[in-house]
């Protein structure tokens, strides 16, 4: 559909775009990314025929763009600039109708049925027919942008060029516009658009062109472009990549410049004891991966609560009950990890371990009425359970990679299994050594300050610290609760 070969050009004497080559197929949604001044708009202006290239060629539908007559080109390529304005009070309909200019031929330029249909369809597609008779000046920025999109669509182009189309739009219009464009590409329209927002571009574009200093840095799919190294190269800023929660496309998060970071140490002095719960409220939010009943998954958490519940606690609508419980005690549910156990809070054990440049603080409660050997088959997981759960908190005073979080969970789990084995805890159903209980929870939380820990495997300093601390605290907690049981 469009081939750009060794294109160079700019305004005045300097070359802004240097030797750019790429091609776009019909029906593609092609994004152009790059920092300010990287030549995105100049490139687009050359493709739209606004600026003559200094060298190189642009071929649209197998025909060099310079050989197109203005009207002929407008029937193939339509452009939606960042902002279009008029001093005069044109109505929406009048504005959209201007899109038919290139299709009106002959001396009298009569308005045909075909013109009217194209205008109506463009207005319907963009949702602008609702205010067809309103004046442009009476519309909001987002509505106006949609009117000009309708104008461009009324040109019935085969290629649509957009310069940061979502610039003036609020969130929902951004999405609507891009959804519409995406849908139109499946009907054969080719869309080439400049994006400012890496994440939006990554979500919607089939392929992306990343520009740096007027030249191509990378061309490829979102996965090819959205690499932390590329973005750092081009934008000279630190970003962190993560997957989109629902769509298999990468997203980038900005990393603000670190501001005066005080070291933070999580230790036993932060542990608050109450009759029915224990909690830790660290001075800064901790990056946390957890399986607690409240605040599971990834998050930045500023409170950690392990709560004693009666062994006859009704589990049917525990979420609502638990939410109320934490709320009443002044915990912000969005920032809290909550766990529950039938174990008395006095039986909680904790342990601090230091290895090299990292320290780990572990808090554990352990009840084993439900002990399970996960390697043995069992009839059903639904049978009536006795109370008993192992809850483990692992606080790492260091900066952990996501890899380290996962390895930390593995290491902690291994240590827990070893503690159960050494204590001789058995699965009552199978009679074999138990590996855990049916309702265990675990979290690993890191201050993300101090020394960087890329790994937490079993022979790394962090891993060894986690292993020791978990083993010792779980063992101690098991002893405490079995002693209490024995006294009863």
């Amino acid at each position: 559909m469009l081939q750009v070969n060794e294109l160079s050009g700019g305004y005045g004497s300097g070359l802004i775009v240097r030797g750019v080559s790429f091609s776009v197929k019909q029906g593609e949604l092609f994004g152009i990314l790059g920092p300010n001044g990287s030549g995105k708009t100049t490139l687009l202006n050359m493709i739209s025929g606004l600026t003559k290239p200094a060298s190189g060629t642009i071929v649209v539908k197998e025909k060099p763009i310079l050989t197109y007559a203005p009207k002929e080109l407008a029937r193939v390529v339509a452009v939606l600039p960042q902002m279009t304005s008029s001093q005069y009070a044109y109505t929406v309909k009048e504005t959209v109708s201007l899109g038919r200019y290139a299709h009106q031929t002959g001396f009298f330029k009569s308005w045909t049925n075909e013109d009217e249909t194209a205008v109506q369809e463009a207005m319907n597609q963009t949702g602008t027919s609702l205010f067809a008779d309103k004046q442009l000046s009476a519309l909001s920025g987002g509505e106006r942008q949609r009117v000009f999109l309708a104008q461009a669509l009324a040109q019935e182009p085969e290629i649509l060029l957009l310069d940061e189309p979502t610039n003036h739009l609020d969130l929902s219009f951004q999405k609507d516009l891009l959804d519409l464009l995406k849908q139109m590409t499946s009907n054969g329209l080719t869309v080439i658009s400049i994006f400012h927002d890496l994440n939006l571009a990554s979500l919607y574009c089939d392929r992306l062109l990343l520009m740096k200093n007027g030249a191509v840095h990378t061309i490829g799919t979102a996965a090819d472009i959205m690499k932390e190294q590329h973005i750092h190269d081009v934008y000279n800023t630190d970003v962190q990549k993560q997957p989109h929660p629902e769509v298999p496309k990468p997203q980038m998060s900005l990393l603000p410049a670190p501001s005066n970071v005080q070291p933070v140490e999580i230790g036993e002095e932060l542990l608050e004891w109450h009759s029915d719960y224990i909690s830790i409220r660290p001075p800064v939010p901790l990056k946390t991966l957890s399986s607690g009943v409240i605040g599971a998954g990834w998050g930045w958490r500023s409170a950690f609560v392990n709560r004693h519940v009666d062994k006859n606690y009704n589990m049917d609508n525990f979420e609502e009950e638990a939410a109320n419980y934490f709320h009443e005690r002044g915990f912000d549910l969005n920032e809290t990890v909550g766990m529950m156990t039938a174990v008395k809070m006095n039986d909680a054990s904790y342990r601090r371990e230091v290895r090299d440049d990292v320290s780990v603080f572990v808090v554990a409660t352990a009840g084993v009425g439900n002990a399970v050997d996960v390697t043995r088959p069992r009839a059903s997981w639904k049978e009536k359970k006795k109370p008993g759960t192992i809850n483990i908190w692992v606080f790492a005073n260091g900066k952990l990679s996501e890899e380290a979080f996962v390895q930390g969970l593995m290491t902690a789990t291994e240590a827990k299994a070893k503690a159960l084995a050494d204590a001789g805890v058995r699965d009552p159903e199978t009679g074999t050594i138990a590996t855990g209980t049916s309702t265990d929870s675990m979290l690993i939380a890191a201050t993300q300050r101090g020394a960087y820990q890329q790994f937490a495997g079993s022979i790394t300093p962090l891993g060894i610290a986690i292993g020791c601390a978990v083993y010792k605290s779980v063992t101690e907690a098991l002893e405490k609760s079995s002693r209490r049981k024995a006294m009863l």
Partner: protein
Amino acid sequence: MRKRSTRTFLPNKKTAYAFALLFLIGAIFIGTAVGTIHVPFRHIAAILAHHLFGTGLSMDASIDNIVWKIRFPRVVLAGLIGASLAIAGAAFQGLLRNPLADPYTLGVSSGASVGAVLVLFFHVSIPFLGGFTLPVVSVATAILTIFCVLLFAQTIERSMKLETIILTGIIFSSFLGSFISLMIALTGEELRQIINWLLGSVSMRGWSYVQLMTPFFIGGALLLMYMAPELNAMSFGEEKAKYLGVNVQRKKMMVLIAGSVLTGAAVAVSGTIGFVGLVVPHFVRILIGPDHRHLLPLSMITGAGFLIMADLTARTIISPTELPIGVITSLIGAPVFALILLNKKRKGGVA
């Protein structure tokens, strides 16, 4: 939404044309009728029918003379000038995307004035042209000025952005204006003549001036009206017009030349008459909207009627003394324009 009411005031374009034509015909008849000797409308109709369609005439020859030789050519000339200035003003406002542009923006009037003042100052009389020398020289210098401005703008910047053209126009206006001032300063007995010409007048011109003006008017007006869709596109900016498929470079030149030729011809035959090209298109735009396909013809019709009425006022308000017509248009135009602006600001929008 209040603004819509001004647009729905004349919901139908046909109604707008009917009103404008009625206003023009009314102006023509009143302009011809009123004077030291009053001529009834039916006599005017009879005389016009006689001369235009060859119907019989049973009337005093002196009345026929007053109407056909003196008043009617004056009314027609005023109408042509008003129409030219208004349509050129409307086109320039659309092209330059500025509702405050007027046909004199590009320095055309200064060019025409320099030619006219030169003729008056040096008492030039070109053989075969005689008394006709002044308008002919004036049209020539006006057209010369346009081409100088455009050429100069192109030397500055090949793509000829409108901003460049406006700046060039201002430079030429000031430069030529200082020439006029110089000649005024050096002149003696011709001072009054020069000032009178500069203030504008359509008196004692006769059919020959109408004949001089007509080809420029027909050519310029038709060209501009043919360019209405392009003007619509270009009022969204040159880039947008280009995206829509307009050959911006060529159409821009055509509009500038057509508008300037109209203006130059008008200035040449009547002197600089201000405010018509500014107020009339503005007023029409408020009534029927900015679509140039209707704005241009309606501005033309309304402008013609407006200038005929202004000329009538100029020659009757302190009769027998005649005021320069430029004074009247500015006296009426400036306050009307102020009112329009005030009204618009209150409603809080841009027309």
